[in-house]
């Protein structure tokens, strides 16, 4: 068990500055997700924690010890690579046994038992003797996952471990991860591009933006109170609608429709941040803002509408109870407390 | 008719002498052109044999007795002595086997003792001196795959009481010498190397090479051993199946001419085989000269050598093997 501390870590690849001073404190046994846009530096950060990449400046501590210049194999970490990095010359079972062998954990029999258990965890018991090249993409990813968790390291670094798995399997794996995490109290840093995954699994979410920490907090906090436009945009896929706050505190849209907003704001031009799942939709005639349906996107359990509201494109996410089609006029309502306002 | 001849020569100073003494006069006289392939006898012979369907040499020169095999295998043409204007001037031994196909010997290298006149504690006088324990750590023997090495060994063998039928005394002497610290090399440059850098004092080898060493600035001298001086013949042979044999014969004729042989002796210290050749005193001192001098040379029967070569080489190899 060990905490991880990053202190103003900067990293540049030649002229390309990738991390602009990251400071992070991850408690022992915490499960932290890194969320952020593609190319924002998540993998780079993991690699720095693992010791695979030297920092340009800054400090890395694991378990209270300064490891900035410590070799990876001395850090008692385990990392799953985004590209899997399976050893092509070893079979699946040998790949998974590899960290045990290298760290000298247990006797040969114990190692084989652990390998078997890890293979069962990722539901690949029947493929133990295959070579990685003979596996499908998702199978390879699971082998990489099994290899990362088999050795019970102090710090577990997972780089998009479930991206190539179908929904069922993904849920199963999430459950396994949580259980392993709870059982062994591993400090886990988890990179994912799937918000629901991050929100459901983590003790804490760290939101990255272009090499900086944009916001961090518990899933509920960070979801409910995005601190910046980027955060709300990234997490909730929010709509931005231009409006003007009148003297009475209510907002007027471009076409003159008005709605109540919760926050007290000085009058002026603003953008309303409307999260797509906060807006509810009803047939014409109900109270609310009038909008026209442009597209309906079927998502199975849910449904996404693209609407025209006061000349702006608005997306909403709703259940599948009522259906509207192209051209229908609908009525939108939103809890004023959930509307955030940012100056324009 | 094609007026070019292809011959082999032995490279380096030898080839230069060859050019001045034989080729230039030949070209001047006939207007023909001579092309040289630089190759030792052994390599040239291998090439000749492999190419027997389309030989490239017109005249081929050997120094290691290859003409005997070549003639026996029909690679060489018999020579009609009457077509060589200078044949009459040759000593008899130099033209003994024309009919079989062996060409005339046009130079003789005398095998004796090459030694370092400064470092060597004493000037050797006889082949027996090779066995002097004081010298053995500084003695260089030559492998018998080398023509000169073969003759040197046979002479050592003879001085130890052996004969061409029994080379065991020679082999015994060699193994004794090796035990005492002598070394074996297989090519001439290695001898130079040993003398120049590695404290070698004495080696049974050819007179012309002693001269080469001297020209290279070493203090090497050549003496004939008192037991006798084996001779290595350099022969010039007419290759079979070539179109311009007339021209080739002319070339051989010039090789054995008085002028050419004097020139060779002057340049490289080879002994002439032309009885008419006249040498200056300085040159004569380094070679076997004149009817008498030549008579002192020992010629081990080349046919016997050829017949036994395989067996001897094998025996020698086993003797020297570490």
């Amino acid at each position, binding site marked *: 068990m060990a905490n991880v501390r990053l202190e103003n870590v900067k990293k540049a690849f030649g002229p390309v500055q990738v991390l602009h001073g990251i400071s992070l404190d991850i408690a022992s046994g915490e499960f932290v997700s890194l969320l952020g846009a593609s190319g924002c530096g998540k993998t780079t950060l993991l690699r720095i924690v693992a010791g695979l990449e030297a920092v340009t400046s800054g400090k890395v501590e694991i378990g209270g010890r300064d490891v900035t210049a410590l070799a990876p194999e001395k850090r008692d970490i385990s990392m799953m690579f985004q590209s899997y990095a399976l050893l092509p010359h070893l079979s699946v079972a040998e790949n998974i046994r590899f960290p045990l062998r290298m760290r000298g954990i247990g006797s040969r029999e114990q190692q084989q038992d652990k390998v078997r258990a890890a293979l069962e965890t990722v539901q690949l018991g029947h493929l133990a003797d295959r070579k990685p090249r003979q596996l499908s993409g998702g199978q390879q990813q699971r082998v990489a996952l099994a290899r990362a968790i088999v050795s019970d390291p102090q710090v577990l670094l997972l780089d998009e471990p479930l991206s190539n798995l179908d929904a069922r399997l993904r849920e199963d794996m999430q459950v396994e991860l949580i259980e392993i995490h709870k059982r062994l109290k591993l400090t886990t840093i988890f990179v994912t591009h799937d918000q629901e995954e991050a929100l459901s699994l983590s003790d804490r979410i760290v939101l990255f933006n272009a090499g900086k920490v944009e916001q961090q907090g518990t899933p509920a906090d960070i979801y409910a109170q995005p601190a910046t436009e980027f955060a709300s945009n990234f997490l909730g896929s929010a709509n931005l609608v231009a409006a003007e706050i009148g003297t009475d505190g209510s907002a007027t849209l471009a076409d003159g429709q008005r709605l109540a907003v919760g926050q007290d704001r000085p009058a002026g031009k603003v953008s309303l941040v409307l999260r797509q799942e906060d807006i509810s939709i009803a047939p014409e005639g109900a109270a609310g803002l009038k909008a026209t349906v442009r597209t309906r996107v079927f998502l199975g359990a849910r449904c996404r509408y693209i609407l025209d509201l006061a000349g702006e494109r608005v997306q909403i996410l709703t259940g599948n109870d009522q259906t509207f089609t192209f051209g229908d006029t609908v009525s939108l309502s939103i809890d004023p407390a959930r509307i955030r306002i940012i100056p324009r | 008719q094609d007026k070019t001849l*292809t011959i082999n020569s032995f490279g*380096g*100073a*030898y080839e230069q002498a060859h050019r001045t003494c034989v080729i230039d006069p030949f070209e001047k006289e006939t207007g023909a052109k001579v092309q040289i392939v630089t190759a030792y006898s052994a390599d040239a012979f291998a090439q000749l044999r492999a190419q027997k*369907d389309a030989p*490239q040499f017109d005249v081929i020169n050997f120094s290691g007795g290859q003409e005997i095999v070549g003639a026996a295998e029909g690679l060489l043409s018999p020579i009609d002595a009457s077509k060589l204007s200078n044949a009459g001037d040759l000593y008899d031994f130099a033209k003994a086997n024309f009919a079989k196909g062996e060409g005339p010997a046009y130079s003789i290298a005398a095998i004796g003792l090459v030694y370092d006149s400064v470092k060597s504690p004493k000037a050797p006088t006889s082949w027996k001196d090779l066995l002097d324990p004081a010298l053995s750590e500084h003695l260089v023997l030559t492998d018998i795959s080398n023509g000169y090495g073969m003759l040197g060994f046979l002479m050592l063998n003879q001085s130890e009481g052996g004969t061409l039928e029994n080379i065991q005394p020679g082999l015994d002497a060699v193994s004794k010498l090796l035990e005492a610290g002598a070394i074996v090399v297989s090519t001439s440059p290695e001898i130079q*190397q040993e003398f*120049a850098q590695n404290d070698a004092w004495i080696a049974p080898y050819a007179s012309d090479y002693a001269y*080469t060493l001297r020209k290279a*600035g070493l203090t090497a001298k050549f003496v004939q051993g008192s037991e006798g001086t084996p001779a290595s013949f350099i022969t010039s042979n007419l290759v079979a199946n070539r179109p311009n044999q007339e021209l080739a014969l002319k070339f051989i004729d010039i090789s054995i001419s008085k002028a050419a042989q004097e020139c060779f002796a002057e340049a490289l210290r080879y002994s002439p085989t032309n009885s008419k050749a006249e040498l200056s005193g300085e040159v004569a001192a380094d070679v076997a000269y004149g009817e008498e001098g030549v008579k002192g040379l020992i010629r081990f029967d080349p046919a016997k050598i050829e017949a036994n070569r395989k067996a001897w080489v094998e025996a020698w190899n086993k003797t020297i093997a570490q």
Partner: protein
Amino acid sequence: MASFLIPSWVRLAARIFIVVTVIFLLAPLVVVVGVSFSESQFIAFPPDGLSLRWYQTVLSDTVYTSAFWTSIRIALLVTVSATVLGGAAAIALHRRMLPGSAFLATFFLSPLVLPTIIYAIGMLMFWSAVFGPVSFVTLWIGHTVIAIPYVVRTTLAVLSESDPFLEEAARTMGAGRIQRLLYVVIPQGLPGLGAGAFFAFNISFDEAVLSLFLRKPGLTTLPVQIYGQLEFSPDPSVAAVSTIMIALTVVLILVIDRMLGLQRFAST
């Protein structure tokens, strides 16, 4: 890779290792260079006296320059022919679609297994019997034969480590056979082909035995010339020739590097 990924003692050991290896590799060359400036007639080291006389000898002697050009000509032709033939064969073998690929790979190695002299004699006998006198072409063919194994081996080894999906991806992008070779397989095999091509050049340029037996007047390669010189009258001129070759190599590589960025090539 991060600097601390390699322990400092390994760095130190690597430095020492490189220094020792470089000393080992260069030791005889230093002797050769040293000898080339010697004043004396014979090969000795350290040289006694300094002079450039051997360079004068070499550069003014047409046998060396003409042998040099013969060698260069053959070596360049052999580089091309051996790389093309060997590279193509290696690519075919790599794909493992021919029956007995493993056997064929060994087959391509066979010219290395026999001492060249056997091949030289065989080739000379064969050529004389079938085509008559040997020529430049004979030597070219002979050198190509003994250079091919190098290209096949090195290329095969490098290809075996490349991503098998790349060629497939190229196919789905419409790359025909030739294009695939040109734009995918060859770039992938480049380190192997490069090494093989270099070996081929070097083998031909340094080959003495075959050249010795297949030569004829006017067809003398530099190694044969050097070999002859050493056999018949060893003097520092051979060292001077070799030193010139060393200098030429370094200059050539640096010039190519300036022009083409060899380091980029070397890094793939």
